[in-house]
């Protein structure tokens, strides 16, 4: 009764990766334990808490409700894929730090990925829209107040930089006009 293995090829954080997995293997487990990208966390295993959120082809997706074989050939972005090659934090990551939007940090990667997806849809959200936008993720530590502030700050920074929030951060060492060109290089360097 051994599981049949399927070859899955994904582009994870800009880098092609291949794994051989049983059909039932969750994307969250494949990312965490086959690809050893443990930044994506699992908080409930039934799609309610949002800790496992990653971007699949740019859309926020619960990796605990997705089989790895379902995303064959697609692009997956995890929290490890946001900082620039030189280490510069993504504006959403930076805002969580600046606003003390994390405590234990367990839910944080899911929040960060959800916020990247949310701000791509709504780059200039009102306070109520921010609350609504993060209401698919649970945090037990912060009471959300500082997370709301972080989303507002991130929206401002992203607008200033003209950056698609689903893209890797721009290296601080690069002049702004070179940023867009540098995207691919950054991803190459990081992989």
């Amino acid at each position, binding site marked *: *009764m051994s599981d049949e293995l399927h070859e899955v090829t994904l582009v994870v954080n800009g880098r092609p990766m291949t794994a051989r997995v049983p059909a039932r293997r969750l994307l969250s487990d494949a990312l965490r334990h086959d690809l050893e990208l443990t930044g994506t966390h699992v908080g409930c295993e039934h799609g309610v808490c949002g800790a496992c959120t990653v971007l699949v082809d740019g859309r926020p997706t619960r990796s605990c409700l997705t089989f790895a074989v379902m995303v064959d050939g697609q692009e997956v972005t995890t929290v490890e894929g946001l*900082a620039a090659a030189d280490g510069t*934090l993504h504006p959403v990551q930076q805002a*969580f730090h600046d606003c003390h939007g994390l*405590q234990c*940090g*367990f839910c944080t990667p899911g929040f*960060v990925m959800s916020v990247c997806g949310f701000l791509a849809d709504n780059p200039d959200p009102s306070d109520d829209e921010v609350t609504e936008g993060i209401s698919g993720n649970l945090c037990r*530590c912060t009471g959300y107040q500082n997370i709301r502030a972080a989303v507002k700050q991130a929206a401002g920074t992203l607008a200033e930089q003209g950056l698609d929030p689903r893209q890797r951060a721009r290296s601080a060492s690069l002049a702004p006009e070179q940023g867009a060109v540098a995207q691919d290089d950054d991803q190459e360097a990081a992989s």
Partner: protein
Amino acid sequence: MTTSMIGERVQRREDDRLLRGLGNYTDDIAHDAYEVAVVRSPHAHARVKDVDVTDALDVDGLVAIYTHEDLTGRLQERGPLLIPHPSLTAPVTQHMLAKDVVSHVGQAIALVVATDRYAAEDAMERIRVDYEVLHAVVGPRNAAAAEHAVHPDVPDNVAAHMVQTIGDAEQAIEAAPHRLHLELEIERSASTPMETRGVYARWDERDRNLRVYTSTQAPTSVRAAIASILELPLQQVDVIAPDVGGGFGVKIMHPWPEELLVPWAALKLDHPVKFTEDRREHFISANHEREQVHTVDVGFDDDGRILGLSVDFLHDHGAFIPYGLIVPIITSTQLLGPYAIEAYRVEFRSLFTNTVPVTPYRGAGRPQGCFVMERTMDAIASELGLDRTEVRLGNMIRPEQMPYEFGLMFQDGRDYTYDSGDFPASLAKLKELMDWDGFAQVREEARAEGRMVGIGMAAYVEGTGVGPYEGGHVLIEPSGKVQVATGLSSQGQGHQTAFAQIAASELGVRIEDVEVVTGDTRRFQYAVGTFASRAAVMSGNAIALATRKVRDKALKIASEALEVSPQDLEIVDGQVRVVGSPDVTLSLGVISTMSNPLRYAFDEQAAIATQFAQPADPDRPPVADDEEPGLEGTDYYSPVRSTFANGMHAVVVEVDPETSDIRILRYGVVHDCGTLINPIIVEGQVHGGVAQGVGGALYERMAYDEHGQLQNASFMDFLMPYATEVPSIEIDHLETPSPLNPLGIKGAGEAGVIPGAAAIAAAIEDATGITITRMPISPSDLHHLRQES
């Protein structure tokens, strides 16, 4: 001296890793370990007649299945009673794997080890357990009625019965001009951290070393438990709390069965083994708290001054009582809050039920006590037609009465004595923050528009920083880097930042040069744990004391080298220099090298410490009798008793006249935790605590049915608040330093959760005119209450 960083809004130093996805939580650590699944009881009370594993044996990937009979040595015994107490007459704890009987849904029966969790669950599904279902005892009233017993040798279901008194409350109540009788109730909730429990163990046969990573609040104590119960030399066992994804109390419980079974299996199989609890397991096998039923009799005068208070309560501690009586003792003492009650009687019975065991959850009995006291204050104000804050003010302990001795015994076995605080000042701040006196007009104006709004408040005092002790180790490396270690662990409280602020300030170095390690028994063996809002008080002060030792030693060495008195030296940015002559300096790194006489030089700096490098007295040993090599120091902080923080919350709610939906419009907090180390972190703790208070007041309950089945064991049904449910919080601080410790600090971790249910109940009552006696309350509950009235 470098400017003190105490009180500065220093950005957290732990964030960077966590934001990049480079956190190191227990399940992140190993990808090749065997994984376990635990067969758990589907029944609240049953006799286990047979466990048949036959069908599971040919599951691909299965490694082993263990039941109670397979366990060896002390693992066959019941788990330890962690905190014995003379009143605890029936201290029943659980077996690591059930022996003959299961006593709650979720109790562990068998351990399945396989190559991964998928395979372990495949095998688990094929294990057949034959049960004889027994009668389940659910809820404290049923337990007290004792028509059925949870454990046959405890027919009354009472594990403990305890009474404490101040004066003669019954007589005082009898003689009082006014009397009230109240019945109040708080339902079950739980810590529910985002990271569930997890344990990973590996045995290294060559090193003869067992290394265990566990998501715990008490790694040193887990280590002691593993060594004791698995009968290993303590020095062969290392326990590390890596990044822990929230604790809130549930992870102070230890050793969980899995914390012993996983290391045992790793030893037995000579292969790394890992347990990662799933969310449903967490609901039914990790501990809960809160459920209590209180009966209150109070006597008071025309001004609302309490003359006598008598409280009798039932505490539901679930199927086992491994953590002793801590929660009900805290309730029965901390119930008194900021009030000078001179005649008090409190009696409780701690009862077995066929539900998940109860051990502390953030607040640890205080939210219940606060609810009881503050509902009583509101009832007195209502009875006399007085303002609710005036009644409270009239009963408050005055600052000039500090230290205030009640004459009760606290949870640590020490006197229940408040060290400091200015409760009337806190109340004045809260009233101003929320414009309490102007609210009557707001309420009337809303009413004229057909809206129902109300305001409520609640005050609490929180015993923080309980003993027995914590320690700190500070070592300055030849590079000048300062390594700080303390034994207790972190679950998001920002210890790496706050403790670094303390060490940097005490020593006179830049915070960038300080590294802090917590919760790793390889770095610090002696510790108690992170609970009871104690980490900043205990380890913060221990680190300060250890740093002072190191500073003294550095100045002593520098004073000899520079031939100046230590009083004439200061340390600025890691440089010891002569006051008034800033050019004459020695770096702490060089002093560290000088402190350690060397035979072998491995770099230029090291050469200065070798035997021919400088003239030395040939008749004196290189290390004097009263000295040790190295620039390091260890010290401990062990207080006589707890230090007491306090605070008050006020909340404005609106109730929908049609649907009874309850919406929080404003939430204000005045908080006094003494000297603040880092306001950003303290405010974050308050925010998170308030969110849990809101959850406990309006959403979260453990919905057991009469058979002991938990009906809402998922995040789908257990309504943990999202951002849409938690209001923004307005905070004002009062800083009354504690006289009990060198830094003047008090704990801040739990405070935010304590008064939530009490304040929100009061606000709902104010908005609707309906008396609220039971929390949490849902719109549906409120709707029924409004219909009944």
